[in-house]
């Protein structure tokens, strides 16, 4: 994470053209990358914040897929992250290829609930997952605001296309140290 500021790979590229007739992949695969030298820590593994950086880049690819880009944000609205829940399974080393998937779990007029997986680009082994809740905000007012109809139509189309996907095992789970000999809680 070394730059003048954090820049996503798609920054400045605008949104993708929306074709209402095109089939929507389930899950979406919009972003691939390679673990960069500046993402790894002293023991040669990708640092946890850089996992989140890559999940953010994948989310940015999704926003552009449904129409949220620089122009959209300049017009006064944006999606802000309210919660992120990361699960780490495996480490990633410099130079390893990463493939990202994205599943839209749910949305309403103001909120978007996403689930992402980071897979090793060659083996397909699951490295990490991210579950995120985002809120659509009026950036000047600093308050949540309904999304416009065309954006909601696109989200609905993606949600419908993803409705048949199994509910991810790790989504919606509170965190805790689970012990077999005790019920919930410590």
């Amino acid at each position: 994470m070394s730059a003048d500021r954090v820049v996503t790979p798609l920054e400045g590229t605008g949104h993708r053209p929306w074709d209402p007739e095109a089939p929507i992949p389930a899950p979406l695969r919009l972003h691939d990358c390679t673990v960069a030298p500046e993402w790894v820590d002293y023991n040669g593994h990708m640092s946890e914040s850089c996992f989140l950086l890559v999940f953010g880049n994948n989310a940015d690819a999704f926003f552009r897929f449904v129409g949220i880009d620089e122009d959209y944000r300049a017009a006064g609205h944006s999606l802000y992250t309210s919660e992120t829940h990361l699960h780490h399974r495996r480490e990633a080393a410099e130079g390893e290829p990463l493939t990202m998937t994205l599943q839209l779990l749910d949305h309403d007029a103001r909120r978007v609930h996403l689930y992402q997986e980071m897979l090793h680009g060659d083996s397909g082994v699951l490295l990490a997952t991210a579950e995120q809740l985002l809120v659509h905000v009026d950036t000047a007012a600093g308050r949540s605001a309904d999304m416009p109809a065309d954006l909601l139509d696109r989200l609905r189309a993606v949600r419908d296309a993803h409705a048949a996907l199994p509910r991810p095992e790790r989504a919606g789970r509170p965190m805790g140290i689970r012990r077999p000999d005790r019920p919930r809680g410590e």
Partner: protein
Amino acid sequence: MAERWPAPFSTYRTRVPEEWLDYNGHMHDASYLVALSEANEALFDALDLGAGYYREVGASYFTVEYHIRYQAECSSGDVLTAETRVVAADPKRIRLYTELKHDDGRLAASGESLYLHVDRQSGRVAAMAPDRYRPVQEVLSAHAGLGRPRPVREDR
């Protein structure tokens, strides 16, 4: 020995640098995690379970879960402090709750994290040696009176 460990543990203090910002001049999602992780790392260092422990013992805490709740925006130059509580622990695991706060006390973000103690050679979860675990137990005891952190919810 409990008085050795302030409740909560709070040594981390940082000023938001330019490179933590995103396109709109606010702190990027991933930069909150940089700060939260550094704050937890400060506790691990205080427990002698940081980079030196890794070199000496060949084991370290590996993050398996991190749940961040974003509460307020941060801008370049903002001063942030962090408070970390040990919520639960055993010789193989530690669960922390961390609050990242603005200078004026406003909550910027909270993080719940779960780490496993992993032997780097075998890549497996391993129990920490009793003498290394003892300080963890001390902090756990020192933090027991803090109660359950407010944003930790069982429902969603």
